[in-house]
């Protein structure tokens, strides 16, 4: 670390050099941000709006006084580019940089902290900076662009967004909003789709638009133009899309412009009557998707019923009956969808909720049985199927499922036995080795007693 004394002349020299030779990079060409490249980048690509950007930087006032440095904190500074998260000079400056580049930026207050300053380190320009040698250029930033990557919309790598043109404002379409977009779809470098289309978010499938676009739209703003990289799960999935000649599990790239949208009403904006009317409509829609095997889309529709009606209170008797029947249907159908999507825990949850409304529901019990069977919980599954038979002794499917359960339990037990037999021999061998040094098991025992004691102490 250099001291203030040592950097002072350097700071002034830099400021003077920048003021003289720096390139004006402001869109307004008002010399508000001047840039000199200290070390060119090693890559030709620049970050795009919304990208997650990693930089190291050092900030100085024009008098040379250092006010901030990411190196002091020992970790790169990370932010989303072009979203107004950082001072303007940065959003402008970093966008011009290439990976690996180091540059100096000289910024006027309008592009930094403004007249107000930023307490406690950056005084307001009125009080201090007019005394400095270069009063109009109070800030020098040395920035090194370490890395950048597209924004990972759901933190699962499934949808990566890179914004070409930023949208306006901060509101996004919600599920059920009507959007007007232009899109172009690419797969393996060839364009398979290009159209202007108006549809309801969550129902893109009606227009051969994969679910990932629906999800991404909920994070876009009016006027935004972006590139979306979709993983298979958010694309056309296992089924592919024969219409476009797209194979199973293909990765897709879309360019999307959100031209306009109209938000759907939030749950709190609707009254009960409206909710019940809408519930009938979305139930139909959900069923249509389900029949076509579009389970993700069906989940969205049924989910709406749950979000509208699950917490609704103060209903009349008639409304409450209608609401319960919608909810029951929604939960049962959701359970079915989740079974198809192989999300068994969620399927069980939905069945539980359905059974909460109607404890002897045959479908609810049967589907929970199915889900549990697939989760290898054979005993619980068997119980469910037995209950189905109690409700409806004619249910042949349940009867055959019980025998499946029994068979599986048996198979499972045998497999377990084989595995454990192996394990026990291995354990025995290890124990023999460890008996000499006398550690492992004893420690385990100690741990167990300690844990026991602690729990009672905590509870007592």
């Amino acid at each position, binding site marked *: 670390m250099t001291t203030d004394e040592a950097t002072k002349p350097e700071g002034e020299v830099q400021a003077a050099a920048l003021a003289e030779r720096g390139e004006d990079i402001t869109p307004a060409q008002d010399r508000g941000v001047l840039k000199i490249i200290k070390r060119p980048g090693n890559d030709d690509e620049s970050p795009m709006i919304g990208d997650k950007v990693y930089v190291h*930087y050092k*900030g100085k006032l024009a008098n040379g006084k250092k*006010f*901030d440095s*990411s190196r*002091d*904190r020992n970790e790169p*500074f990370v*932010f*989303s580019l072009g*979203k*107004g*998260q*950082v*001072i*303007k000079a*940065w959003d402008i400056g970093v966008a011009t940089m290439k990976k690996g580049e180091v540059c100096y930026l000289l910024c006027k207050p309008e592009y930094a*902290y*403004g*007249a*107000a*300053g*930023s*307490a*406690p*380190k*950056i005084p307001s320009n009125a009080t201090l900076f007019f005394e400095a040698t270069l009063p109009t250029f109070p800030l020098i*930033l040395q920035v090194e662009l370490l890395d950048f990557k597209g924004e990972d919309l759901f*933190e699962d790598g499934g949808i990566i967004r890179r914004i070409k043109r930023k949208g*306006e*404002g*901060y*509101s996004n379409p919600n599920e059920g909003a009507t959007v007007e977009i232009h899109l172009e779809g690419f797969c393996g470098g060839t364009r398979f789709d290009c159209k202007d289309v108006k549809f309801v978010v969550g129902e893109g499938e009606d227009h051969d638009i994969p679910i990932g676009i629906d999800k991404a739209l909920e994070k876009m703003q009016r006027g935004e133009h972006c590139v979306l990289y979709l993983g298979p799960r958010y694309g056309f999935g296992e089924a592919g899309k024969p219409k476009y000649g797209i194979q199973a599990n293909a990765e897709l790239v879309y360019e999307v412009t959100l031209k306009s949208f109209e938000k759907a009403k939030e749950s709190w904006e609707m009254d009960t009557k409206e909710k019940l009317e809408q519930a009938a409509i979305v139930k139909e829609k959900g069923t249509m998707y389900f029949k076509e095997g579009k389970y993700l889309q069906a989940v969205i529709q049924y989910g709406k019923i749950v979000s509208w009606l699950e917490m609704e209170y103060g209903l009349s008797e008639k409304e409450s009956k209608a609401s319960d029947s919608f909810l029951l249907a929604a939960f049962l159908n959701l359970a079915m969808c989740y079974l198809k999507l192989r999300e068994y825990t969620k399927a069980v949850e939905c069945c539980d909720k359905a059974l909460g409304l109607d404890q002897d529901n045959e479908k609810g019990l049967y589907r929970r049985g199915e889900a549990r069977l697939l989760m290898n919980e054979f005993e619980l599954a068997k119980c469910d199927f037995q209950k189905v038979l109690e409700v409806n002794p004619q249910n042949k499917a349940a009867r055959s499922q019980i025998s499946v359960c029994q068979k599986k339990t048996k198979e499972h037990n045998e497999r377990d036995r084989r595995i454990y037999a192996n394990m026990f021999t291995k354990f025995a061998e290890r124990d023999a080795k460890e008996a000499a040094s006398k550690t492992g098991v004893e*420690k385990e025992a*100690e*741990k167990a*007693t*300690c*844990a026991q*004691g*602690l729990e009672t*102490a*905590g509870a*007592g």
Partner: protein
Amino acid sequence: MAVDELQAIIQRCQILEESDFRGEDFNLFQVAGQKCLEDGYAAQLLEVIQNEKNKVIIKNMGWNLISPLVRCILAYKQEDDKQEHCLKILDQLVQLCNPKELFLGLLEQIEQTSGEQVCPTVMLLLQPLQTVLLKLQNKKAYSVGLSLAMIMNQLTPLPVPYTKQQIQEDKLGLCRCCNAVVDFAKPFVNEVVKNMEKSSEYNNMELKEELLKFCMKSLKYPLLTAQLEQLEGIEEHPFRHFATEIIDILQDIRELMPLVFLHHKGRRSYWENQEFEDIERKNSADSLACLSYLMFVQHFGINCFPMVFSPSYLLQCNMTHIEVLLNRTEESMLSKGLDLFESCLLRMEDNSLSHQYLEFRDFINVPQDLVKVMTLCPIEHLRKKSLNMLQLFIDKFDAEGKYTLFRCLLKTSNHAGVQGYIIQKIKDQIHLSLTKAHDNIWFTGHHLISLLDLVLFLPEGAETDLLQNSDRIMASLNLLRYLVIKDCESDNQTGVWTILAKIEKNFLKPLHVGLNMSKAHYEAEIKNKKENRREANKSNTVCSLTVSEEKMPAMTTEMQLQVLHSALFTFDLIESVLARVEELIEVKVKAVMAENI
């Protein structure tokens, strides 16, 4: 004799192997030891414990003495020899006893204490507990976490000293205790720091999580409730010190920045279950709000805060916290919320905040919360500050933002005073638009007309309660007067002349009717009161009024008359402004007609 009994059991055990101690030996030892302590033979007990020969016995059985020992230490006065002996015994036990059992023994003591005893007990046992924890081999992270959680849970019911006097007095010892707890945690923080430099082991993560939980808990209690402004005459403000230490810990374990920017980073989640995650988020909302307050208002830990964030982004990040704080009713939290809001707003330049920020729900909610504080909070300085903050917030927005805010506040605030204030602000903005060279479409022309629709009308027509709405009505009349004076009919920049007929129908006419009705009503009432003066004095009051549990004295007829007269005066005032406005309108309309002829 207690000492003899103790000697007996000791002698019996001295010859036994460790593994041969029986349950009844433990009992006998405990009973005899306890008796020694209760009868005041601490010195003798100390001797027994210090005896090298008894080492094994003490190692196994000693922890049983913790409970009576703590009781004795707290009962004796300081400087008492016996207390001195007891402290030495405690010290010995910590050295000699089996860490596992001793740990549980100590924790049990902390768990069982309550009320005034909490702080002294915790202070007494922190040091021993720390020593024992450092000796523990297994489940250390878990045990440290358990200890900290237990201590904080015991402290939480205690009232937090708030005034300077209370802090100095520190009656229950909370201030000292909190800082002692931080010292207690320090070795574990160091351990995490050291291990982080080496590698990221799994076990280490656990300890770090426990410390993080402790910090979060501390931010919520006592810090959120505490007074954290610097106090004159107190050199080392105990809670400021505590806050610095907590922030230091967060910084050391590198959790400070992730916490401050929690919501935009999509933080890793510990819970698979969404419900648990929601609960955790709710629980941490208070703590995070306090953390933001400490950083941005008190500037604790600001040194490691990146300075390159834009002021509007910082405001946006803090809005959630401000909303959380303003929704509370306690003075400590409301004032923290207002201070945090102020510090964020002061970073911004006037007119620089885009109206688009109002699309964030908290940007609309917070001004409404401010109105609630302004109108409902019983604490005067907070009401005043809320008003100032509302003003500051309005100042920061661009014209469209101001316009949207005015609309929102006119619709949502059911308070004539606030509405009157907003109407006055609208007038200021119109004035700026008319006088400044650059044109401003939001406070002239059709945008303004739709805003005036919300201002120039009586909420319930002629039946509106004029007295209750007088602030609003006066402000509206003033605005109208300004408009007709400033804006000529030929220019009609504001559009007021276009909607004149509507204004007359919705506002001026019903106001006339209302004034006549109200005046007649109040005059009749006065007449009535005067005639029945004697009678009224005799009659019992029908109802009584209590304000903050204090019964208000019944109003005398004189007082009632006074109130009625002041109401009449208000009506007169409204009427005179109304007359003036109508006169101005008439003159201008006539002038134009004359010109046209």
